[in-house]
């Protein structure tokens, strides 16, 4: 009984994810240089990301763009 009610309470979002902080990593051309680098957008902070291998491995959404 309890179990059923709890499941029903999942709301429209079956995977409610309270304990999370989302960030985005974007491949950008860095201003005033020819460098293309990964940039971390973490709320108001925007920084050049150094090593994003782990981030790539566990990303939730991947956006691929056509390159030709």
């Amino acid at each position, binding site marked *: 009984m*309890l179990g*059923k*009610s*709890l*499941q*029903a*309470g*999942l*709301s*429209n*979002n*079956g*995977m*409610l*994810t*309270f*304990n*999370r*902080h*989302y*960030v*985005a*990593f*974007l*491949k*950008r051309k*860095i*201003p*005033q240089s020819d460098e293309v680098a990964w*940039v*971390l*957008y*973490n*709320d*108001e*902070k*925007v*920084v*050049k*990301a*150094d*090593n*994003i291998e782990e*981030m*790539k*491995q*566990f*990303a*939730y*959404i*991947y*956006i*691929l*763009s*056509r*390159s*030709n």
Partner: protein
Amino acid sequence: MILGLKQCSSCELKENLWLCLECGNVGCGRSQFGGVGGNSHALAHADSSSHGVAVKLGSITPEGSADIYCYKCNEERIDPSLAAHLAHWGINIAESEKTEKSLMELQVEQNLKWEFSMTTDDGSVLQPVFGPGFTGLKNLGNSCYLASIVQCLFALPEFQQRYFRPNEDPPQTNNPAEDLETQLRKLADGLLSGRYSKPDSEISVQPESVEVPHQRGLAPAMFKHLIGRGHEEFSTMRQQDAFELLLHLFKLITLSNRTESSANPVDSFRFVLEQRLQCLDCSKVRYRYDEQDNISVQVPARPLASENGLETTARYESVTMKECLDIFTGDEVVELKCPGCGSNKGFRKRSLFKSLPQHLVINARRFELINWVPTKLNIPVEINDDDMDMGAYLSSGPLPTEEFLPEDAATGTPAFSANIELVQQLASMGFSQVRCENALYATGNSDLESAMNWLLAHLDDPDIDKPVSVNSGVTPTEHDIEKIQQLGEMGIDAKQASRALSATGGDVNRALDWVFSHPEGSDDDNEMSTAQETGSTAQPETPGKTDLPAKYTLQSLVCHKGGSLHAG
């Protein structure tokens, strides 16, 4: 209140107490960031008793909300019958007073002050970047899901060209706050002009720091309000699922572009997916084409043996993105009765791209349903920055030698026909046929996950077991003028809004989904009039490209990185 509710049954702690909803044991929670103490006795109780669900005593409000944690699935839960469950333990919810911070409040607090690892592996500080397109978005309290998605979208040329118009007047509207076009242009200007991307000396990392300070960031409050309006989740301050938000934005932007002459930037995500079914007995085939703007790929879980038996979380073999796509487009056998030869042998099913989009959104699904609960698995996916050839996933269409299956009987009736394969998948999870059809009807008949989520959320609906009735004399009910207006502002005319609301029981969001699965003019009875109203617009082109080579490269990622706040 019984005395036992005021102290942990295993130690002296009198705060951060969790009541087991199965046996009434009171134990202290884990210690939390921010100085909340705890000796994890509630967790120990859950482990030793196998009791799953506990409620945090100081978090109960008279309105019936409280922190509820399930130790079995390691996640927060909501209990709609909390008052009754608490009454059993002698707690009168109406007299309860919230005395401690809820997990959400702790989370907001932590998000606001938490520094995402702003240092590199060797300890040097990550360097802030400034300029047009490098504008941060201030956290409005658990709004990082929104910021992450917005940054990804406005980095794309289609969105930049469409909404960043520095030399134009703002669009004509009586109510700019309620106009998505206006708000998107405002956001584009904020992010792309560079005006707001400046170091703010008031925000210093550390008082005596010589580092470049970060920027203040734009606060997208009006935008958040507008896109969340009428949505039961996105209108709240709660943390949300970034992928669901992306799909919600796609919908809203597409709707707002119906009345614009400019190109809809969401089109750059659109493509056609081809599904081919072949009977294993008579070898006849059926093709089905669906327009999509994303794919969800299931990441296969291959557990690694634990090295020392001490690890608390399971580890998994890493999987390449290519393998995920191979599985997505691979053959799969489905059990279906063949309408051609009547055989029950089943079908071979295969999905391929009929066309490929400019930008491909891939949602990596790393969860398994364990006891109905989607459980997240930490499976690493390997993807590098090199070009990826998607040509192999492009279909060349039906072969001349293929024989087609007859169409199902009773075609031509506008009755709802549920996607049989999705029905089957849902049914295999234990839902009844009627419930499956209801769920598919409500969620657009195209996506297993939304249908599943809908089912989980609507199990207690009184009409959940009533068969779908599309035209069985649905009486047009008087819909809230406000709802029709709300849909109107998204570009849906009153007549269609009213029809959509009738079909969905007056739920604005489901009505929105309904509009998408029922494009104007598709209704027989209204074909003439809508054709006249809209005039002779050009046939929409098939989205996506089919030319080769089809090379793709990783452009952006949305990650969730946790200062994981262990609950309970």
